[in-house]
Structures are given as structure tokens and as C-alpha cells.
């Protein structure tokens, strides 16, 4: 049985100016130990999807409009707050993009590090502190004992992110959700952080969801990739399949836009146009206005993710109907 099954998740924000449909009809599955990458530009709904699963969407103004998120036998979207709190931090952990703002500036690192243990496991403080020290060690932070007493602002960016990872993994969860963990870091540090996550993953045998706007990062790290646009899943496949047998124009566009893969000196490839206005969605495929392959029915029919060979889903109407090659 898969570790996590998300079916038809839809989340909207009811603001003063209108309704923003941040996530629409998103479905995916995650097996134990698998790494899933969720890729998309800002506003694609990738982060909101994860927040929805974790129950971190502020309601109001947000609202889960439908769907299920089955973790084991528990529907995370429908269970009680108490049940959710039992799972969060213990079996599913999450790390965030900006480690500086995500750590409490008023508490010492040690205090924050042992907190998941204090909440979820009935062990004495001294035992928890020992485990915290061990985690810091694993995370590659030297002088761990000294560091426990320090405050977040005394650490560098990379170290803070390591602390976040240590904090998230101290309860040995089954699933780690990493929301753009490297975006705010220097390039050299990015690689180190990803290495660390990979190492911890293999040690703990846990699944990882990695959210990023960078297709390059995701390709090196994940078993499967899910591409999102305007709140919907456009394509979902194993990494190799996604790259070598692309089945969606948007994915192709993203691939073509990776600077490292382009000829030096030539003009950089971009996808023309802007993402759609989330408050005024147009009918049909949201990517149609910018798609070089769009035909008239693309702007009329609603899209649905369909598995065309198994394990490779695409929402492109033309691929589904005419087997268009992108």
C-alpha cells in the first residue's frame, strides 16, 4: 500500500477581492522510501499542496474544498486536530524555505531541537538532549554541545537549514516534505544540503517530497517528478521518463529553459507570456494561451490527468487525443 495517497485535492483562498483557486484536483501517490519532486513556477500551487496535506493552510481565508489525503488509513484532511497533531512532527515532518524566519528567534536551538521529542515521545529531557546532539552530529554541525545553547541568529544560513533538517528528522518520520529547502542558500551550500537529505533518507528509509521551482535540482534527486501549473498537475512521471519522453508542452518549455542545457552565447529560451490570473481562471487548459501547440479545443475542454503508459500521467489534451509528440 502506498505511504501517501492524495486524491482530488482542491484548496481555495477566499479573499476580499475574490476566490483564488490555488490547488485544483491534484492527485498523486507516494510509496515508502520514494522521492517525489513537485516542480512549478511561483503561484503554481506546489507549496499550497503540501501545506494542505499538513493542515497548515490558514482557514480562513483558505479552505480545503475537496479531496482526500490518505496517510496509512488516516485522511489528513478530515481527521481531528488531535490526530493531526499526533502525525505532524512524528510521522510526517516538514522543512521550509527560509530557515531564519522558520526558527523561533526567542528560543535556544537546543530547546527547539528537542521539542518534537518532548511533544511526541515520553522520554526525559536528558535523553532527548542526547538524541539532539546525535542529530546535530549527523547533520554535520560541529561543536554540537556548544551550539545547543545558541540562538538562531548566531548561525549561518546553511547551518540553520541543517538545524531545521535535524529538527525535522529527530523523530525518524516516515515522510519528509521539503519546501524549497535550498532556494535561499548559496549554490555550494545547496549541494551540501541536498546531500544531507539524501543521506538521512537512505539511513531512515523515509520518503521525501521535494518542492522546487528548479527542474535541474529535482532531476538529480528524485525518483518521480510532478509538474504543476496554475494549481493543476500537468505531468507526472518517473524522472527519466519525464526528461526523455516528455509528454507535456509545459514540461518541454521548462526543460528548454534550463540555462545549463543551452548553447553558450545564444539567446536564452523563455516561455512567452504570463501565468494566468488565479482570480479569473479561463476555461480549458490553463497553459493554452502560452502553448505553441494549442488548438481551439485546448481553450474549451477541461483537462484531466490521465495515465498514458502506466506511471506516466499527462494532462495535455492533444497528447491524450492525438498522441502529439512535444
Amino acid at each position, binding site marked *: 500500500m502506498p505511504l501517501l495517497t492524495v486524491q482530488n485535492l482542491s484548496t481555495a483562498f477566499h*479573499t*476580499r477581492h475574490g476566490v483564488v483557486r490555488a490547488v485544483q484536483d491534484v492527485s498523486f501517490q507516494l510509496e515508502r522510501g520514494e522521492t517525489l519532486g513537485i516542480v512549478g513556477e511561483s503561484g503554481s500551487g506546489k507549496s499550497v499542496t503540501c501545506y494542505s496535506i499538513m493542515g497548515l493552510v490558514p482557514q480562513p*481565508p483558505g479552505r480545503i474544498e475537496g479531496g482526500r489525503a490518505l496517510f496509512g488509513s488516516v485522511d489528513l484532511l478530515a481527521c481531528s486536530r488531535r490526530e493531526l497533531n499526533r502525525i505532524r512532527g512524528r510521522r510526517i515532518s516538514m522543512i521550509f524555505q527560509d530557515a531564519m524566519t522558520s526558527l523561533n528567534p526567542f528560543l535556544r536551538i537546543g530547546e527547539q531541537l528537542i521539542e518534537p521529542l518532548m511533544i511526541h515521545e515520553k522520554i526525559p529531557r536528558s535523553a532527548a538532549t542526547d538524541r539532539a546532539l546525535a542529530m546535530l552530529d549527523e547533520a554535520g554541525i560541529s561543536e554540537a554541545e556548544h551550539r545547543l545553547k545558541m540562538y538562531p541568529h548566531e548561525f549561518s544560513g546553511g547551518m540553520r537549514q541543517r538545524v531545521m533538517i535535524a529538527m525535522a528528522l529527530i523523530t525518524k518520520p516516515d515522510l519528509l516534505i521539503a519546501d524549497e529547502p535550498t532556494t535561499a542558500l548559496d549554490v555550494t551550500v545547496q549541494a551540501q544540503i541536498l546531500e544531507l537529505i539524501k543521506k538521512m533518507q537512505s539511513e531512515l528509509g523515509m520518503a521525501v517530497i521535494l518542492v522546487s521551482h528548479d527542474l535541474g535540482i529535482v532531476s538529480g534527486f528524485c525518483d518521480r517528478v510532478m509538474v504543476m501549473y496554475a494549481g493543476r498537475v500537468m505531468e507526472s512521471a518517473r524522472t527519466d521518463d519525464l526528461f526523455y519522453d516528455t509528454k507535456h508542452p509545459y514540461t*518541454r518549455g521548462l526543460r528548454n529553459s534550463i540555462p545549463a542545457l543551452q548553447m553558450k552565447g545564444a539567446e536564452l529560451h523563455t516561455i*512567452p*507570456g*504570463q501565468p494566468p490570473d488565479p482570480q479569473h481562471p479561463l476555461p480549458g487548459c490553463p497553459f*493554452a*494561451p*502560452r*502553448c*505553441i501547440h*494549442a*488548438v*481551439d479545443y*485546448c*481553450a474549451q475542454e477541461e483537462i484531466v490527468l490521465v495515465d498514458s503508459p502506466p506511471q506516466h500521467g499527462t494532462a495535455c489534451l492533444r497528447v491524450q487525443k492525438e498522441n502529439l509528440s*512535444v
Partner: protein
Amino acid sequence: MDSSTPIASVAPAESEGGSSFWQDARHRLWQNKLAVFGLVVLSILAALCFATYLFPNISGYTYERQNLALGPVPPSRAHWLGTDALGRDLLARLLYGGGISLLVGLCATLVSLTIGVIYGAIAGFAGGKLDMVMMRMVDILYALPFAIFVILLMVFFGQNLILLFVAIGAVEWLTMARIVRGQVMAVKRQEFVEAAHALGLREGRIIFRHIVPNLLGPIIVYATLTVPEVILLESFLSFLGLGVQPPQSSWGVLIKEGAEVMEEYPWLLIYPGAVMALTLFSLNFLGDGLRDALDVRGSKD
């Protein structure tokens, strides 16, 4: 794969009418029902009070005309709010006193505004050591019970209205100074000031056309919020017998007189208290509304 002309072209962004900062603020303020309520109530009260202050005989009764034969009566047709122990019409005294209280409020706020803005602007512009010293002084003064000094001033140097303005204003300027200084420092660092410098604009022009408009917002807000504090302080002094002197009335005087005879003639306390509270509400709501409307940081949804 070759990029043939896309069938669906990208629609050009529609041009939207822009709105200025002040228009946005006015719109937000208008949406805030409480603030609008405050503004309306305030306007009505102020109009009535100032009219009565300027033309004391407007209602047929002046604030000082006694009617000893009548004595204190509860509200009636002849006297809408009743009379006090000396037969003076309460409504007239209330409105006249309101004029005085509001006048004190405005003038003292003006005094504190002037002192505060100048002090804060100097500290903010100067920066460095001067700023540090000036702000340290403000910090020290902020915590002292200044009201004690106001009391001493009023006791020793007699109760004239001008002194009252000055004394109260001298107490309230500290917050304004802090805010102005903070705002000046924040604006000074902003990139558009650097840009103006880069364009070669003169210092004076920069100050007037760029920095000053950014100061107006917080100044307006805190001035509006200072007025109720001043009115409270004035009534506090009057209660101790130090502010406005009878037969002149202010809300503080009326409340004092009412409190003394609260048992037998409750209306003498209730009406002045209610009217003053209503005014303070209105000012506070208006001030809060202005703060929300003019504060560009942070939208709530």
C-alpha cells in the same frame, strides 16, 4: 522542434487606471465603518460645540446664566439635559465646555506636534551621536510621570488657558518625536532617496518632495490619537481643580461637579461623561481607521 507562430497569441495586459496613495487610503478609510462613524459624530459634535463657544447665547441659555429659583432639575422640555445646582442649563454648559475641551485638545496637540516633529526630524536627519543623545533623553523623559510637572505648573502659575495648552503639549510631544524620527530614518534609507541623489537633486528638494509626504501619514494618525489623550489630561486637571475654572466650563469641570452630587442629581455626571466618552471613542476610531488606511505595510487578507 521549431517555434511556429502560436495559434493562441498572448493577450496584452489591459491598462488599468492607477490610483494614488492618498486615493487608496481614502477608499480604505471609507470602507471602515467605525472610522466613518467616528468622523461623522465628531463633525457634528465639533460643529455644535464651536458654534456654542462662539455664540454662547445660541440656545437661549448661556453657560453661566444662573436660575437660582429653579435649582437643579432633571431633563425636561425647557432644559433638555436638566440644570445644575445653580440652575444653569446643562446642555449649554456641555456644548460650551465641549468647545473649550476640543479647543484645548487641538491647541495642545498642535504644540506637541510642533515640538515633536521638529525634535524628531532633527534627530532623524542628523543620525549618529546627536540622534543617540536626543533619543536617550526622550527615553528617560518618556517614563517620568510628567503629569506631576503639569500639576505643579498649573498650581503654581495660575490657571490660564494658554499655559494649559503649553503644559499639556509639553507632555505629549515625546511619542510624536519618536515616530517622526523613526519615519525619517526609514525613509532616509529608502532607495528612492538614493535615486534622487543619484539624479543630482538638491537636498532641499529631496526633503520637501520626497521625505515630507512620507511623514504626513504617521503624523496625521498620531495627531488624531493624541487629541483624546489631551482631552483626558485636561479633564484630569480640571477634576483636581487645576484646569479650566468655573464659571467657565469644560467637560472635566462638568464631570467634577457632577461627581460631587452624583447621588442626588445623577444626570449631571452621566451626560457630560457620556458625551466625553463618545467624543473620545470617535477620535480613537477615526485614528485607528486612519492608521489602517495609511499604513501601507501589511494587508490583512
